[in-house]
């Protein structure tokens, strides 16, 4: 309804502003449309704000007046029962419940209906009054020399600012809650135990907090083995080579096909990679290990399977970052080297890659940070056993897998087990944040070097 009025206000103010135009000698400062927007915004924003605030307070006000009703005098004293009955009465009053369970609730229904009707009307009247008052105030300011354009622009700026703040504030909120839960965790389990302990078995601690079961080293190691070692052994050479091919050798046609295909690869849902890892790659690797290499401890959930598939997943990241950095190396470098009689591959190896190295390293760091935060593939393919092993055919587990483990299923939210998940999350967050900061810093410095 307020919006409707705002639309009307937009038209009337626009009309009025347009009429003003011939009266004044000079051209009006702002186009009629801006005047329209100005009045409409003045009308709508305060009213909508009021409405929001009002609807926040509404249930409280209604409840208070219901409690004053004589029928509420014989409510039970216990807080929980009271809330239950009040809730039931409210549901009955607005029709989402049809039959009462408690008689007391039934008795409160008329009071509820009356109170919410009363406050509802007050709310609407107040909103409309506010809307008209503000609208009129703005309308009276519609004059040829009034700078409506500047004001509207400022409102637009604020709206955009708020929109961009929402993402940041949400992140801050998440970090704050992580931090809070982590502190609670460290009140129970010492931080030294957690970071340096080598035994991880929180599932055994349902009834007692044994600090010896919260050593996270095997998880950190598993994460590094899969995300930073195996995946990178796959992704760095392949990503780099494909970037070199695309920037230096590929004819324009091939490039125009292959680059989008690589980028699409980056959009494949990780759960699909997870299937692939668990159902195809992992058994193949186990058979290979057992039959060909004679590794009897090979598990069907191996670090190698998860790492290799994850490596394939991040090839597009490495390749597109490397591609960008290679393309950013000035053509004069390449010409200089070719003019010396260097071949294409010598030029790439000795001039282009060294020159693009900072950008490439930045890309690799970003890829690592993505790999260690990746969850689906490792959940499906890496296994749950917290082994501290360097054997890639064995099963290892990662930070993300354990977070999933700790938080799925029935859990009370203040056991050490669940709190441990927050601590792990915080560690993961800090590590990836640092990696990203370093990577972006390196890439930025590299960009500046060539501007």
């Amino acid at each position, binding site marked *: 309804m307020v919006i409707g009025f705002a639309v009307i206000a937009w038209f009337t103010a626009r009309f009025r502003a347009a009429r003003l135009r011939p009266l004044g000698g000079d051209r009006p400062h702002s186009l009629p449309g801006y005047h329209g927007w100005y009045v409409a915004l003045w009308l709508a924003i305060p009213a909508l704000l009021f409405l929001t605030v009002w609807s926040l307070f509404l249930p409280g006000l209604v409840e208070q007046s219901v409690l004053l009703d004589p029928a509420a005098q014989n409510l039970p004293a216990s807080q929980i029962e009271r809330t239950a009955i009040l809730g039931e009465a409210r549901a009955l009053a607005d029709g989402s419940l049809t039959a009462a369970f408690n008689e007391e609730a039934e008795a409160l229904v008329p009071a509820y209906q009356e109170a919410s009707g009363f406050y509802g009307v007050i709310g609407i009247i107040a909103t409309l009054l506010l809307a008209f008052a503000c609208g009129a105030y703005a309308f009276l300011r519609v004059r040829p020399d009034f700078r409506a354009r500047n004001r509207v622009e400022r409102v637009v700026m604020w709206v955009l600012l708020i929109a961009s703040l929402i993402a940041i504030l949400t992140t801050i909120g998440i970090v704050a809650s992580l931090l809070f839960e982590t502190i609670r965790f460290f009140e129970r389990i010492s931080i030294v135990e957690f970071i340096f302990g080598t035994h991880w078995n929180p599932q055994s601690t349902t009834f007692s907090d044994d600090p010896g079961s919260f050593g996270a080293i095997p998880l950190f190691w598993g994460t590094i083995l899969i995300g930073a070692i195996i995946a990178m052994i796959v992704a760095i050479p392949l990503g780099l080579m494909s970037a070199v091919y695309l920037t230096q050798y590929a004819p324009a046609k091939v490039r125009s096909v292959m680059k989008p295909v690589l980028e699409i690869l980056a959009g494949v849902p990780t759960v699909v990679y997870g299937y692939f890892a668990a159902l195809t790659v992992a058994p193949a690797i186990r058979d290979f290990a057992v039959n060909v290499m004679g590794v009897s401890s090979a598990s069907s959930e191996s670090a190698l399977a998860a790492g290799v598939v994850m490596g394939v997943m991040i090839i597009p990241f490495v390749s597109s970052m490397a591609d960008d950095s290679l393309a950013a190396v000035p053509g004069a470098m390449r010409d200089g080297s070719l*003019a*010396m009689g260097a071949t294409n591959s010598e030029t790439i190896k000795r001039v282009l890659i060294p020159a693009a190295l900072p950008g490439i390293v930045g890309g690799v760091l970003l890829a690592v940070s993505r790999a260690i935060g990746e969850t689906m593939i490792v959940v499906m393919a890496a296994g749950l056993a917290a082994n501290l092993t360097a054997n890639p055919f064995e099963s290892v587990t990662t930070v993300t897998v354990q977070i999933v483990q700790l938080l799925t299923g029935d859990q009370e939210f203040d056991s050490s087990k669940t709190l441990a998940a927050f601590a792990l999350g915080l560690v993961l967050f800090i590590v990836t944040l640092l990696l990203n900061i370093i990577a972006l810093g390196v890439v930025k410095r590299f960009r500046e070097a060539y501007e």
Partner: protein
Amino acid sequence: MNNVGDMMNDATDTQAESRADAPALAQDTLKMTARNVDVYYGDKQAIDNVSIDIGMENVTAFIGPSGCGKSTFLRCLNRMNDTIPIARVTGQIELDEKDIYDPAMDVVQLRARVGMVFQKPNPFPKSIFENVAYGPRIHGLATSKSELDEIVEKSLIRAGLFEEVKDRLHDSGTALSGGQQQRLCIARAIAVDPEVILMDEPCSALDPIATAKIEELINDLRGKYAIVIVTHNMQQAARVSQRTAFFHLGTLVEYGETSDLFTNPSQDRTKDYITGRYG
């Protein structure tokens, strides 16, 4: 229509004349010869039937208004146009009487013999030493570390840079001043002991003092290498070159002794250009 016809006739005449001029330069040892060279970028012709002789003992200057094809022609001489996919070169260019566009000619070796210095100094992002050592390394010119050191030092001395950088050979080449960078690029080019050095406006990014240093250097290098220099600066052409070629709209208009060409141009277009009437 008539006009166009006239102009084309004019152009053919010019070609005939400049080819006729060529033997007059023969007292110099011939290093490179170009005959009837055309260059196309896609469908667009950038060089039209250019024939020219480059002598060993002299510095040859290419002058002409912007876009007339000086760089394009220069880049034909060491086949750098190969790196531009849409560029196509026809005609014949010989180095020591061997066709450089012959399939038997190895472009890697050709470029080692015909070095190039670019308009903007483009040292590699490596140390000064590594910049100069780059060519000898890829061509395997040094068998030992001490030999490589020697080549680097000799090249830097020849390029007149050694005294300025001898204490910081392992600092980055990109940290030098523009003029020093350009001399580093010259040192880099002479480190592979080329026979011809092509320079495309080597001073256009430099201040007058750095420019004077480079001109002095070109004078010192004359005789050891056949040098071709593209320049927009008439005084520079007059100062450093013995032969000058004037290009216009992709054709070679006039080619002769620098002193003759500047004092007594045989073509009106040349005269207009060097007296600054256009370009």
